[in-house]
């Protein structure tokens, strides 16, 4: 049986680990709440924008817009959204795995991967298909202060590289947020725009006055809706990260308390055995004297 002191140190160490994991869980829960609020905040905007866009584009042909036009898929850009920090279960690995699958599917030669977040940076650091200098490199800092404006600069660069013809298709790989415990890995096509096949509910074709003109509004709105789409992916990923970390830390805390329970049992058994031994020795000694 392990000696008493060893077990005692073990219990202390597991205890402090448990404190850390439960603190991390708490922090993640708070951050998750905030990230979730941001997702909810954003929803009315996205919905309204989509509604206006479909209203405006219903009567005119948008197929010639550079962002809508489908080109031959020669160069494909994968944007992999991961977090900067680990300890969140399979969150980052899932994205990396999915990205690698896609790379294999399309063939390495036609693909470029743009990592966002330190974990993806590390994973694709040495691969031949990593994004070159013509794309924004330091996007990991985006996660520190995630807001629409910061994300926009990245989206704008993506859009301009698409317009220039550097890429013919841009896919975003990210964790979409379902609930705190469940994240769904998604590979969403950002560009060219997939036309939402929403034959919208309110087809009460109101006669809108368009200023300046339908075409110009469309040209104005499409980049905006792209930004919103990408920003939504980022927000989703952030919320998923905190959700994933919360779940992971919750499990770790549970495991730690389970472990402590077992250790305490062994400790007490060992303690009792030691006491019994002592008593036996004393009784044995007394017997010998009497005998």
């Amino acid at each position, binding site marked *: 049986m392990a000696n008493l002191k060893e077990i005692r140190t073990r219990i202390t160490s597991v205890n402090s680990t448990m404190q850390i994991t439960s603190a991390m869980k708490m922090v993640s829960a708070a951050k998750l709440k905030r990230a979730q609020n941001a997702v909810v905040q954003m929803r009315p905007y996205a919905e309204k924008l989509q509604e206006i866009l479909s209203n405006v584009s219903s009567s005119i042909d948008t197929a010639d817009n550079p962002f809508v036009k489908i080109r031959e898929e020669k160069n494909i850009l994968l944007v992999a959204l991961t977090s900067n920090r680990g300890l969140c279960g399979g969150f980052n690995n899932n994205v990396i795995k999915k990205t690698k699958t896609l790379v294999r599917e399309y063939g390495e030669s036609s693909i470029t991967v743009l990592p966002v977040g330190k974990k993806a940076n590390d994973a694709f650091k040495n691969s031949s298909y990593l994004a070159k200098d013509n794309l924004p490199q330091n996007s990991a800092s985006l996660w520190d202060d995630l807001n629409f404006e910061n994300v926009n600069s990245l989206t704008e660069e993506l859009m301009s590289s698409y317009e220039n013809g550097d890429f013919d298709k841009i896919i975003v790989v990210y964790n979409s947020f379902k609930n705190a415990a469940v994240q769904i890995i998604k590979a969403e096509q950002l560009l060219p725009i997939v036309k939402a096949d929403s034959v919208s509910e309110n087809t009460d074709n109101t006669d809108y006055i368009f*200023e*300046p003109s339908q075409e*110009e*509004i469309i040209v104005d709105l499409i980049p905006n809706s792209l930004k919103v789409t990408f920003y939504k992916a980022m927000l989703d990923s952030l919320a998923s990260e905190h959700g994933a970390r919360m779940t992971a830390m919750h499990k770790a805390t549970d495991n730690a308390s389970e472990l402590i329970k077992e250790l305490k049992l062994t400790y007490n058994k060992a303690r009792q055995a030691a006491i019994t031994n002592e008593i036996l020795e004393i009784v044995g000694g007394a017997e010998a004297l009497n005998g």
Partner: protein
Amino acid sequence: MNLQIITPDAELFSGEVDSVVVPGSDGLIGILNNHAPLVSSLKSGQVKINNAGDEKFFDVNGGVVEVLKNKVVILAT
């Protein structure tokens, strides 16, 4: 009429107003009650709200406005 100003990060304003002036890309557009349905893109400028003499201002950096059945929605960026 009802006015909503929303950005992707937050809802800036929501409530009843008498009039609102928005910086349309072809010039300022004043919107009063019972305005005809309108969709206009915005350029950067100031949104001016008037509610019974009480004026409020918001700076926007472009966006789009939709007016429909006494409901004004400004999607600002």
